[in-house]
């Protein structure tokens, strides 16, 4: 009797809303882009190029291990600080974290364009207060502005 029951579909942007709501203090934003999903994801998915361009904390972001959709990346900041990020990367979905920070992107086709979500923030006790101190969702909105500019 259960073969044809309707099933709720949760797309990648909805998944990112769930994670952003669950991690205290992360900055979150989503917007529509006129660019196609393929164009958007070709850019974001090339993380060694896109992460330093979108996330100003990174001077360099290098993939050092790759096993399926599980990646490990070494990031270097502008004052020489370094971090090792565990990354999950698949079509329309990118999530990364090191000891102190978490962030990610999600994208789904929307009409002729794409809906893109970005989130990021500290991964430490008191993350919520730190997130507010750094302007709440403004950080994620700035990242999406850079993405729009870089896709133009």
């Amino acid at each position, binding site marked *: 009797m259960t073969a044809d029951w*309707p099933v709720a579909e949760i797309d990648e942007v909805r998944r990112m809303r*769930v994670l952003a709501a669950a*991690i205290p203090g992360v900055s979150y934003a989503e917007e529509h882009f006129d660019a196609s999903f393929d164009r958007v994801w070709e850019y974001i998915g090339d993380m060694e190029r896109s992460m330093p361009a979108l996330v100003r904390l990174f001077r360099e972001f290098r993939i050092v291990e790759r096993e399926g959709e599980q990646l490990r990346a070494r990031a270097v900041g502008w004052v020489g600080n370094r971090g090792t990020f565990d990354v999950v990367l698949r079509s329309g979905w990118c999530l990364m974290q090191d000891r102190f920070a978490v962030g990610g992107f999600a994208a789904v086709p929307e009409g002729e364009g794409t809906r893109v979500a970005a989130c990021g923030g500290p991964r430490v006790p008191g993350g919520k207060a730190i997130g507010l101190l750094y302007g709440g969702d403004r950080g994620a909105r700035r990242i999406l502005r850079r993405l729009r500019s870089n896709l133009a």
Partner: protein
Amino acid sequence: MGDASRDPDEIADLVRSAQHGDAIAMNALLDRLTPYVGRLCGPIALQDSADAAQEALISVFQNLKALNEPAALYGWVRRIAVREAVRVAQRSARARPAELAELPAPGSPELAADIRDVLDRLSPEHRAILVLREIEGLDEKDAAQLLHISPGAAKSRLSRARSSFRKAWSS
């Protein structure tokens, strides 16, 4: 139900890591829970099922620290998902014109072409009891407890829901 991704030790590790703020573990848990929540919310919230599943998953992950026993994860998630699906479906029904919000609809289920048509003719509460019995295999007592209704009310709702299906299938 019995998929390999429900290895109890693996699930317990993921729950504990996610409870400590590990986003990669949350992601893995989300991979496992999303299809389950989708199967519960789909037949209850129908056109609003994506919203219901999203709300349910937000509630699950925001309250994950309250889950003391990882082995109880799926039962706990089921309770939250069914509750959210009924709430979202009721909210949506209230927002629609009154004649469409009268559930079960007065129309004849004999005209139903498929399962979705039959579900459309039932109230969210009737759909919830049907899901718990037919998809989740709960007995009437457990289903009634989860829905915070009396066993008599559960029996009556189930009988009405099944009757709609019988009429639809035999038409």
